[in-house]
């Protein structure tokens, strides 16, 4: 229903029709951006979408900041931190910071925010982002201690990502719904107006503290939700938008040939993979046989998928995690080269010389799923294709009714292997491998505070997972950013638009 209607037709027409020239709102110092999806709630603890992360980084600050270029952790609302013991983190807070509503930032805000979001009954949408925290405690006005439920080495990464600090008094008064309509934070941009899901207007925070995010340059940011990518492009052509992102590869290629636009491609943390029900939860299907799983791994030409379909900065992935993540040791993974003959031989060895028929599920990127299917068909595996809504597939997945599926995972942009491999191989409802050895490795890796031990055990888990071919990891995703030549911006590899690093040419 969304972009597939026309895919490329409109791009060609628009190319012919476009008359050139840039009309950016540089004169008014207003950057106009499009979102594709209706954002459910601006309150970052109560949404789980990319658009939400973009606004979160603009409106609020975390205690810590990770430099997207160097992956180095820097103080933001905290100036320093230290582990008192394995489950207690003490942070010194920055003084002199004020919220957009004028309230001063202090330890009380941290205590309130942490205590509110870590309580399950308050319903924070992505529990994993916050449920590792037990509570927070004020030591003095500018010193707090965060108590963890158990050892959690990725704490610093989470504090620099999804955990933002909210104004205690205001949040207590208005709650998540009120915060979503009139957000108040300490961030580089303050919110002028919100029309839920449709329109967001931001304005530069003139009193922004000396943050590692940098000072905002562009005064106003005007974000509209335009669901159809073709319409977004029309807006760009007619000069009423300055920046669009998540532009499909074929459209971006055409736009790149035009003089008035800059097209930049960056990789994202999303990894596409085939999940195979090795444990046989969905019945005694052929994929319970290791040789069949290896055959499937050999059957698919990942190189070709990346070059012909995904393009850009996408790459072949052979790990059950995104290679930049801490602990995602690529060398540990057994990689399977494209070898259809070997695949056929393995199938024959497993007792399927004439192949077999299996249910194959997918929920997004139908074109990728279909390409994967044709590789499988080529080695004799017939697929009964089922394309479902995400929620429906997820439900069947949790019940263990899916023998083979093309799935993806974006790790919530968290640069730690625990955000991916540990989500799927620790005997949870989505684990179709149920490997006790993997569970043991991951338990050690997830809870150790020693980086060396963590790396060693993630590597062991990755080795075992790929050796047993529980998954067929495929490729990483990329995204295209298109903006007028008046805009200067260097996208980062985590799929987050950062308005503070944008400026006019």
């Amino acid at each position, binding site marked *: 229903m969304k972009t597939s209607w*026309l895919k490329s037709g409109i791009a060609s027409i*628009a190319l012919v029709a476009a008359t050139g020239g840039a009309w950016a709102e540089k004169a008014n110092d207003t950057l106009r951006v499009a979102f594709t999806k209706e954002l459910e709630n601006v309150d970052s603890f109560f949404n*789980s979408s990319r658009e939400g992360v973009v606004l979160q980084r603009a409106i609020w600050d975390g205690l810590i900041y990770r430099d997207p270029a160097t992956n180095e952790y820097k103080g933001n609302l905290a100036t320093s931190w230290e582990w008192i013991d394995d489950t207690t983190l003490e942070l010194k807070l920055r003084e002199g910071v004020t919220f957009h509503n004028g309230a001063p930032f202090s330890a009380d805000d941290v205590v309130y925010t942490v205590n509110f979001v870590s309580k399950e009954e308050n319903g924070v949408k992505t529990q994993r982002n916050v449920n590792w925290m037990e509570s927070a405690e004020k030591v003095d006005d500018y010193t707090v201690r965060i108590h963890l439920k158990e050892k959690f080495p990725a704490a610093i990464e989470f504090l620099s990502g999804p955990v933002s600090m909210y104004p205690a008094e205001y949040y207590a008064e208005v709650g998540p719904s009120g915060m979503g309509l009139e957000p108040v934070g300490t961030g580089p941009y303050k919110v002028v107006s919100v029309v839920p899901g449709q329109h967001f207007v931001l304005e530069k925070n003139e009193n922004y503290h000396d943050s590692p995010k940098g000072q905002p340059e562009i005064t106003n940011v005007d974000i509209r*939700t335009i*669901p159809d990518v073709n*319409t977004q492009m*029309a807006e760009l052509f007619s000069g009423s938008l300055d920046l669009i992102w998540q532009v499909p590869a074929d459209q971006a290629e055409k736009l790149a040939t035009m003089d008035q636009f800059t097209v930049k491609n960056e990789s994202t943390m999303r990894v596409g993979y085939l999940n195979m029900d090795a444990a046989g939860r969905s019945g005694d299907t052929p994929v319970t046989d290791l040789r069949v799983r290896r055959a499937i791994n050999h059957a698919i030409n990942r190189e070709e998928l990346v070059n012909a379909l995904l393009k850009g900065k996408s790459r072949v992935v052979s790990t059950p995690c995104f290679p930049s993540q801490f602990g995602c040791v690529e060398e540990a993974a057994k990689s399977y080269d494209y070898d259809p003959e070997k695949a056929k031989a393995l199938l024959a060895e497993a007792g399927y010389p004439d192949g077999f028929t299996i249910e194959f599920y997918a929920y997004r990127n139908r074109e990728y799923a279909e390409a994967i299917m044709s590789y499988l068909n080529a080695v004799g595996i017939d697929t009964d294709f089922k394309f479902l809504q995400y929620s429906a597939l997820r439900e069947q997945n949790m019940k263990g009714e899916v023998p083979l599926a093309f799935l993806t995972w*974006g790790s919530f942009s968290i640069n730690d292997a625990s955000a991916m491999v540990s989500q799927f191989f620790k005997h949870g409802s989505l684990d179709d491998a149920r490997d006790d050895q993997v569970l043991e490795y991951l338990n050690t890796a997830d809870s150790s505070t020693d980086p060396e031990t963590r790396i060693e055990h993630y590597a062991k888990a990755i080795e075992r997972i790929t050796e047993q071919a529980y998954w067929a990891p495929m490729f990483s995703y990329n995204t295209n950013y298109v903006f007028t030549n008046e805009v200067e911006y260097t996208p980062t590899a985590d799929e987050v638009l950062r308005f503070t690093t944008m400026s006019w040419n």
Partner: protein
Amino acid sequence: MLTFTLKRLGLAVLVALTVSFISFTLLFLAGDPAAALAGETASGEDIEAISKLYGFDRPMLVQYGDWLFSALRGDFGESYYFRLPVSSLIFDRLGVTMTLGVCGISFALLTAVPLGVAAAIRPNSIIDRVALFLSVAGQAMPSFWFGLILIVLFAIKLGWLPPSGASGPMHFIMPTIVLGYYAMPAIMRLTRAGMLDVLSSDYIRTARAKGAPEGRVLFRHALRNAIIPVVSLAAVQMGFMLGGSIVVESIFALHGAGYLAWESIARNDLPTVQALILVFSMFYIVFTFLADVLNAWLDPRMRSS
């Protein structure tokens, strides 16, 4: 007349109830609302927590009963997705959809009826051929394609109109044309056929024979009789426009009720979908009722039956 109206009203309520129950059942079968709510990044534990929080673990009939009793009190609950009251959410978006629907149907009627009449007066003439071409084109052209062509022409090439959005009257011109054009062919063909039929009848010959002016014959005698099925059709088209202008709303980024319904289904946002279905079915009921009344006024024979 009072018993007639009351009967109709009772029937309307039953229809709305049936529709809401069926849709509730279907939505329930479509997928776990908790998984949809939790989003793509959620773990199995997140989904279980949400399921408990919203009470999805209760039997379906209990959940439906719960919804029904609140709805009867005018409370449609809170949208799972937006966490805002459903009533205010729908109210905000209905304005756009109503404006679009009224403009669309007016555009369709104002172009289709005169064209249909003109085509009927001179069958097989140039006018008739042009009208035929327009209706075939309108029927054959998908609205997303037509919409994009208009955007390319009027927004990009000529720069006369804004490509999308709903912040002023100019924003509604292209969506009106696209939505109206889609409804136009059926109305025009029906007007033409009705007019042809009526114009060959005895009373028209009589009216002409007694020397009535041609305009009076056409509009007072012929059109008034030929328009009756058109009124019924327009009522259905109007209902369709209010609930089904998803494509047009999506292309022109109008954020109306139709688009909200479409997206809410994908999000498994049950309270929003349920309320919208109720609102849309009420639209159909109200418009068909109004069409009946209008037809009764146009045709005295209908009043007695």
